[in-house]
């Protein structure tokens, strides 16, 4: 039963991530997930300080707030200084991550938090925290990933046209008053929320991988946005199952297994496809 929950959560987070990832790959801000996932460490530390380690929702709320602030301030500084966003991203996320590490150093007695856990995550631990709903034990992570999966699907279905137009032609989207920056910010905010939820279940590395890898593979093979999105979903399921077996077979963390399989699948796609620049 436990492995069943692990697979369901992996697939849900992966599905949401590769859906958002399709737009991220087309727009080209693949490092946003990485930056946000590092930047939320101070919020996680404060969350644990307030609420303790067990049955604690504080860190989730605080981390989501910090993630959204980070995403928005990267965009804000980028517009204000007219600097390329890569420099600002690199500065802000390392600054916040270092701050988080120092906070762990300072309150080492009250925060029993291993920064490596935050970095790696481990999908095999998913079933260990439960909610009790109608006398049935439901893994906490299942509820959260179901929630973010549902929000992401709803968001994409409702805004598909606007998302597509503002992704491919920002100027045109402006001209028909479609508010491309609103959709851009919304994708960033969703990525931020997804990142925070994913840190606890699948870890930063796997999150980064499933944000960009399935969508990039689909991008290389598909010719239209619709088929790219569907292909990304299929790729995600295939990579997750293959990676899971690989990880169990050679006995390494699941997140690493899926990411490694994803990297190889992408390399094979790059060699096999001939999409021109």
């Amino acid at each position, binding site marked *: 039963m436990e492995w069943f929950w692990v697979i369901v959560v992996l697939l849900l987070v992966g599905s949401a991530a590769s859906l958002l990832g399709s737009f991220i790959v087309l727009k080209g801000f693949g*490092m946003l997930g990485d930056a946000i996932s590092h930047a939320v460490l101070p919020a996680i530390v404060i969350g644990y300080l307030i609420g303790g380690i067990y049955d604690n929702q504080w860190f989730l709320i605080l981390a989501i707030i910090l993630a959204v602030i980070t995403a928005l301030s990267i965009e804000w500084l980028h517009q204000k200084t007219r600097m390329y966003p*890569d420099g600002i991203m690199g500065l802000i996320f390392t600054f916040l991550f*270092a701050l988080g*590490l*120092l906070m762990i150093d300072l309150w080492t007695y009250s925060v029993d938090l291993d920064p490596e856990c935050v970095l790696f995550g481990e999908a095999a631990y998913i079933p260990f925290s439960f909610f009790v709903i109608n006398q049935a034990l439901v893994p906490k992570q299942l509820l959260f990933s179901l929630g973010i999966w549902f929000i992401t699907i709803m968001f994409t279905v409702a805004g598909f046209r606007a998302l597509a137009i503002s992704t491919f032609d920002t100027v045109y989207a402006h001209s028909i008053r479609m508010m491309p920056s609103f959709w851009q910010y919304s994708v960033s905010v969703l990525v931020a929320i997804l990142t925070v939820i994913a840190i606890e279940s699948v870890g930063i590395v796997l999150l980064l991988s499933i944000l960009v890898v399935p969508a990039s593979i689909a991008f290389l093979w598909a010719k239209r946005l619709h088929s790219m999105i569907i292909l990304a979903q299929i790729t995600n399921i295939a990579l997750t199952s293959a990676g899971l077996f690989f990880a169990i077979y050679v006995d390494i963390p699941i997140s690493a*297994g*899926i990411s490694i399989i994803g990297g190889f699948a992408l390399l094979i796609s790059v060699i096999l496809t001939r999409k*021109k620049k």
Partner: protein
Amino acid sequence: MMDLPLHIFIALAFIGWFSGLMGSILLVHHRVLIGDVLSHSVLSGAAFVFLMFLDVSFPMLIVGAIASTLLAATLIEFVKDRTPLKEDVILGIVLAFMFAIGIAFLALAQKMPSVEKTMLNTLLLGEVSAILPSEVPYMVIASILGSFVIWFLYRGWFFTGFDTVFGRTQRVPISSLRKTLLFIVASGILLTAYISGVVLAVGLLIAPALIGRFFSTRLYSTLLLSGLSGAVLAVLGGVVSAKVEGLSTGPLIIFSAGLIGLLTILFSPHYGIILHKIKYVLFKWSRGQENILRAAYKVLEKTGNMSYAFSLEDLRQACDDPPPSWTILLKVLEIRGLVKRSGSRWTLTNIGLEKARRLTRLHRLLELYFSEIVKIAPEKVHSYAESLEHIITPEVEQRLYELLRDRQYDPHKKPVPWNGSG
């Protein structure tokens, strides 16, 4: 430097300098995040070497780390050359792939009996105190070599960073220079990662580079400044963490560097956001005060009585360009001793009257200048004079006086207040 051993001090200074240089070149090429990808790749190489040879001495670490960062750089360039994927996305892919390999090797290494596996964990988040005196010569030589390569290619960076088209016409090999950049950073990033940890290394590249970028306008001085501030920041972090018990050096260096980098973005003289804003607000408030004085002069002029006590309503009617806040600015003028308050009315003091007269004189002379010398229709000159009167330098003001010395009336037939008689 009381508690910081000399060899660590030297290592921090040289690595900080070299990191600043690398970051500066990356920043100019908008490829900062490549530093992040390459530093994360260090882990896989180091862990691989450990798994193969059970050896984490510094020379072995160098070999393993450089092999893996070069692999990552090659992967980036390979995917970039063959697909239309955006660079940022490729970085995400390669980062996840290389770091995942590193984690997998690390997990396998945990099962090994050797005690040296803890060394790999320190590589993840950095541990400056682990630097041995025997390792320092390698670091110094590598930093100096790297700096020489960057200095040697200086002219090339200039073109690849700023004007690739002109560079091509000068037969500068742009794309191989860009690849060289990648490989320099790939070989050098181990040093940065060794003191700050692979996760934070990009912070030590970017923060000094930003300081260099925001405080100087030329590539040469930007490079020097970045290198120097990198060295200073690294040493500063080392000194503080040696003094304060329980804080790790790597995060401390990155935190202080990041803090100073952010402050630079916000406050630097040329590009700083906040300073720009503050200057703007200050200007608005000083302009508001000048407008109040001039409105007061207009009221006094109308009554013909220079010690007339005017009300807020009088000022409101006389002023065309209302200040941000009447009450606050009148209070400021009162503190500066330019107006005197009695109840709900104000009078100008002697100094205030002199200032108000000067402003009015300047305004009307500017109107004259625009209408008679620049030949602009009199009904338009008021707004030009209005916006210029606040920013004119004393030198220009003096020239205006000399030029229009004999005029008594402005284009709207109002007297120019040349002297105390008004």
